[in-house]
């Protein structure tokens, strides 16, 4: 399974609050936080094809451009699954995850999900019915490793075992 990750600048290792205006970028394979997600991905034979990222400040100023280009890049790469997250409890990045996920769902046939913690009340209430948003702890919260395992399980079901997706959505999504 080939995966594309959508990160903010902090998770991609381009500096978070110190580099919020980091423009749209892409890297081969998994970078930054991807390294701690990869053990879970390996269990389902998934490989990170590319990581797309941008700073939340840049996203705020160029929302339409970012979402359109992220979606177009996903189309070009044509992975099996796109993970928009993990957004932790970062409100702007979590919103970016939800908006990109929605766009990918609407404009492509590619499986995708967003991932964030319950502190993102507004984003979750706005998007949870439209797209799969997986649960995870806030930054520094308990259960980060487990949440990546759940993500992998969800991805595998989404791509290979669609009959299981309803049950897993019930279990792992908002």
């Amino acid at each position, binding site marked *: 399974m080939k995966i594309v990750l959508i990160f903010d600048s902090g*998770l991609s290792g381009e500096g978070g609050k110190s580099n919020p205006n980091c423009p749209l970028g892409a890297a081969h394979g998994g970078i930054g936080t991807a390294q701690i997600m990869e053990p879970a991905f390996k269990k389902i034979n998934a490989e990170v094809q590319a990581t797309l990222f941008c700073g939340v400040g840049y996203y705020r100023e160029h929302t339409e451009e970012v979402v359109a280009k992220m979606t*177009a890049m996903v189309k070009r790469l044509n992975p099996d699954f796109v993970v928009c997250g993990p957004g932790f409890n970062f409100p702007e990045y979590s919103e970016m995850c939800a908006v990109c996920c929605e766009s990918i769902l609407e404009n492509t046939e590619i499986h995708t999900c967003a991932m964030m913690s319950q502190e993102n009340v507004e984003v979750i209430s706005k998007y949870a019915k439209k797209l799969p948003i997986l649960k995870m702890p806030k930054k520094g919260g308990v259960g980060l490793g487990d949440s990546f395992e759940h993500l992998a399980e969800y991805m595998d079901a989404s791509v290979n075992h669609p009959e299981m997706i309803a049950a897993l959505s019930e279990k792992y999504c908002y």
Partner: protein
Amino acid sequence: MMKKLEGWLMPIANALSKNKVLVSIRDGFMFAVPMIIIGSIFLLISNFPIEGWSQFIASFAGEGWEANLDAVTSATFDCYAILGCIGIAYAYARENNVDKIECAILSLVNFLILAPKKFPAYTNEAGKSFSGFAFSNLGTKGIFLAMITAICTVLLFKWAVKKHWVIKLPDGVPPAVMDSFAALLPAAFAMFVFFVVNIIFTHTSFGNAPAFIYAVLQAPLLGVGRSAGFEVLYQFLSTLFWFFGINGPAVTNTIFSPIHQALTLENYEAAAAGLPMTNIFTAGFSDFFCNFGGGGSTLGLVIMMTFFSKSKRMRTLGKLSLPAAIFGINEPIIFGLPIVLNPLMAIPFLLTPVLNTILAQVATQIGFIPITIGVQLSWTTPIFISGFLVTGSINAVILQAVQLAMDMGIYYPFMKMQDIRYLEDEKNAANKKDNLDDLSFDDLQLN
């Protein structure tokens, strides 16, 4: 192994970080931190660690100038138990969905009910004994009593509310009046219980509740805080939790923070009384001699990444993280390098704070650096400045420099391994000739 350890730690972290009492104690003392830091500034000015400072200020401010500053220091440090009592009751009421401000005030009243008010040993020339509240019971010595009082007050208040012992006024009465009347009977109940408890303690050999709590609970726990392994254990556990993505201090401080605070204030009180300070493991020691640049003491790592890494990714991240790291913030590398759940970084991340602690502990015990004074600085105070201000000694700056060099040495081989991995990734990416060849966003077809 990692999975097993995580499985073992997670329930502990869950239990501690979700325990309402422990969370309220941690948060309650946090409410007082701004005032303590401001009080520390006044304390620092009146005791600035430079020879001739006092005389210099006295030359234009007049003799006894320190007394004006001490008014602020006393109102914060000497009343720390009161501040904690109010804060903890507020936080615990918040956790229990009862009236926060009423519980905070009520808790203060109950604390004062238990505090001794007659001091027959202190009499004036007319033979009248001192009657009032003594700093000795409102500061360090009252910390644990403050915690217990705050928690019990809220529980009693909540119990009375649940029993509907509430006076309800008709609609149209202003909310403030409504709330104060609603709190009347629960407050009366809680105060009556503390009134009885106070009477009971006056008939014991302890004479009062604060003396009992101090002897039975606080003194033994502070004894644990003075033991050799206390700080090492705190640092190790905090970092271990962080490694698994859990905010370590948020968990460990539920247990360790009151002890750190009490040990710090004991030093302040000893210094104020002209006695030698004896506690090594104060908040200042923990913040400024065990960790530099955030959990895992990652300042050394960030410096190595900035100046000694070869991969573009690591060098860029180092440069972007360095300004924040100087002020003790390492979020960019915790998730960006990453460090959390990264087995390669586990050894230096866990080892560095422990070795810093041991080195600083030995340096204090052999007298190379003095024991930290009661000053509490913001944990974001940069290295070297912090060492000088919390000890008043240039040797502390030298020690921090040695520790930083040691941290860089510990992190170097592991940083190098990660760097080599990133370099390979970068070379592979440059050589790849597939559909990923062009990851440029410029020539994308947008719908």
